[in-house]
């Protein structure tokens, strides 16, 4: 047991342990205030800006990051790209925690947390948010089914492992379909606001853009995780990571082409080169998330280095989180008037939820042995 701990990469927290604990503690304080005095007491949410960073960053961003789950599962089980098998466990665990953190934030964000189960019994199938809530519930179930295999394996419950293996393929297919639907539906949420959302972001292609970017983000998150979990070298072998990066670049290309063609077709490409606030925020998301990563990964030397991949992947992640913030906040500012700046307590909650997900990953990765062992082809030794 102890010998294994050395050759399996660990997701170590180190000094960050204290930061995470402090954030979670501060989050608990804010939570008490929020549930006793209402949302207004802890947030800068208002009638003009009813949705803030909780929805934009934690929910939209979290779900997009959770795209790692369906992306990798689909690649391995449906497309039979078996060389990505070693990263499935890490991707599934991360996706589950990303979705769990999005759900936890929603629980906090909605006015009546105790009514969060209402979409199960009160239906409005015209509503995209209703679809999204069902997709999220079902998809988290799929991730649990997928992840339960790891737990059963760990516990040595072989019968359950066998059952879990038997349902893996159908579960993965359902998972990929559910993800396709809810990733795109999250973009479709904003189709209802043509008069409010700025032309740089309002497009009938929003669902497609959300979906494609979630795939790119999925691959980016695998690279980031591998780096964070490895000490001197990535927790996932470089050749596999190189392939992951290559696929990511291809998908970024697809995204970039759709994005630019859409702007051009709607005749608003010029707005992107203005010096307005919106144009600058657009440039930030697009250069950071698409142009720069593709540019630096075009350099063979950077492509071959673990840090190079990591930096590019981090840019993709930041760029697309910026995109989600822009779609749901920046893009509304011109029409709604004024600016929305989150309150300190709002930021605390956002970060506390992320902190909980990181701690969850730390323990989950250790318990479930999600990373492949290094330099050891003998399989499990304990």
């Amino acid at each position, binding site marked *: 047991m102890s010998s294994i701990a050395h050759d399996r990469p660990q997701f170590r927290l180190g000094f960050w342990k204290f930061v995470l604990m402090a954030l979670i503690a501060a989050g608990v304080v804010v939570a008490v205030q929020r549930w006793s005095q209402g949302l207004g007491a802890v947030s800068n949410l208002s*009638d003009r800006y009813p949705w803030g960073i909780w929805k934009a960053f934690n929910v939209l961003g979290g779900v997009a990051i959770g795209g790692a789950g369906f992306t990798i599962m689909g690649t391995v089980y*449906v497309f039979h790209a078996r060389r990505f098998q070693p990263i499935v466990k890490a991707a599934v665990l991360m996706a589950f925690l990303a979705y769990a953190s999005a759900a936890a934030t929603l629980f906090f964000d909605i*006015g009546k947390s105790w009514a*969060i189960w209402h979409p199960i019994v009160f239906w409005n199938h015209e509503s995209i948010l209703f679809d999204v809530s069902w997709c999220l519930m079902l998809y988290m179930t799929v991730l649990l089914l997928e992840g339960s295999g790891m737990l059963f394996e760990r516990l040595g419950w072989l019968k359950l492992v066998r059952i879990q293996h038997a349902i893996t393929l159908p579960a993965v297919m359902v998972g990929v379909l559910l993800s396709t639907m809810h990733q795109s539906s999250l973009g*479709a*949420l904003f189709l*209802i606001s043509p*008069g409010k959302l700025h032309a740089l972001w309002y497009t009938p292609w929003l669902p497609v853009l959300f979906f494609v970017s979630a795939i790119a983000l999925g691959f980016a998150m695998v690279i980031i995780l591998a780096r964070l979990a490895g000490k001197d070298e990535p927790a996932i072998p470089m050749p596999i990571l190189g392939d992951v990066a290559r696929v990511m670049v291809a998908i970024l290309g697809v995204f970039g082409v759709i994005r630019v063609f859409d702007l051009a077709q709607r005749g608003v490409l010029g707005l992107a080169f203005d010096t307005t606030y919106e144009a600058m925020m657009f440039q930030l998301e697009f250069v950071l998330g698409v142009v720069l990563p593709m540019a630096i990964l075009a350099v063979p030397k950077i492509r071959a280095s673990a840090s190079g991949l990591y930096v590019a992947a981090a840019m993709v992640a930041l760029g697309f989180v910026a995109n989600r913030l822009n779609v749901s906040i920046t893009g509304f500012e011109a029409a709604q008037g004024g600016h929305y700046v989150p309150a300190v307590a709002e930021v605390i909650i956002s970060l506390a939820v992320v902190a909980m997900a990181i701690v969850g990953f730390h323990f989950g990765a250790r318990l479930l042995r999600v990373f492949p062992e290094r330099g050891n082809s003998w399989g499990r030794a304990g």
Partner: protein
Amino acid sequence: MTIEPVGLLFDMTRCGGCRECVKACTKSHGLAANPETVTELSADARTCIRPNGEYNVRDLCRNCLSPSCASVCPVGALKKDERGPVKYDADKCIGCRYCMVACPFNMPRYEWKSAVPRVQKCDLCVDRLDRGEPPACAAACRQEATVFGKRKDLIAEAHRRIAESPDEYHPHVYGEHEVGGTSVLFLTPYPVEELGFKASLGTEPLPDLTVVVPRRIPAIVLCGGAALSAVWWITRRRDEVAAAENAAACAAHFRSRNQHGASPREDVDVEHRA
């Protein structure tokens, strides 16, 4: 029997700003706003009076004919009553506030300060309609600036007033066609942009932009499922063919090696690699 939809017509040129409508509204719904001074909608005010030059304008939920809020509500807490009101059921509401994002007029207000928050907006006094009474504001208005009636009749009356006094009115009934039409109609002396109202909303109901998405779900599931199965089958078949070809090649290699008297050790290696 089809029900004839009702509505309110607010004629800005007739409003003297006495605020009887606001008083009646806050009283009728138990709201905390001071009716004498309120100029903005809030969780405490479902309607208000805003001075605009020498005129006064009322603000209130338009109760759209095809309401975005009701279309996007995940739990159906907001519903269009066939008589006209967009009703709100606070017990169903989970507080997601998507209605506020979706409303093209920015009408719903939220009780941000409450631990048990609700949405607040005009529902045309649906409880009074149930009793056969007009909305409280219309009943209270002494100038007939706010009048209640069948929407059809109100539109006819509005156009009659415009035709009768073309100098007094901007020739447009705001709400007749906007986003598919609204139950609350406005007659104004000048274009509504000058009131801070949104003018360029189009005449298409906004829910049409999004309801197409849920309707595509069965197709997505069927086609997507078929496509995924196809990809799974093809890529697996490709691997199987590759494995079989590999095995055949190895077997051939194995046979030729044996014929040429290779050492058993090498054979094991070949087998291993296969």
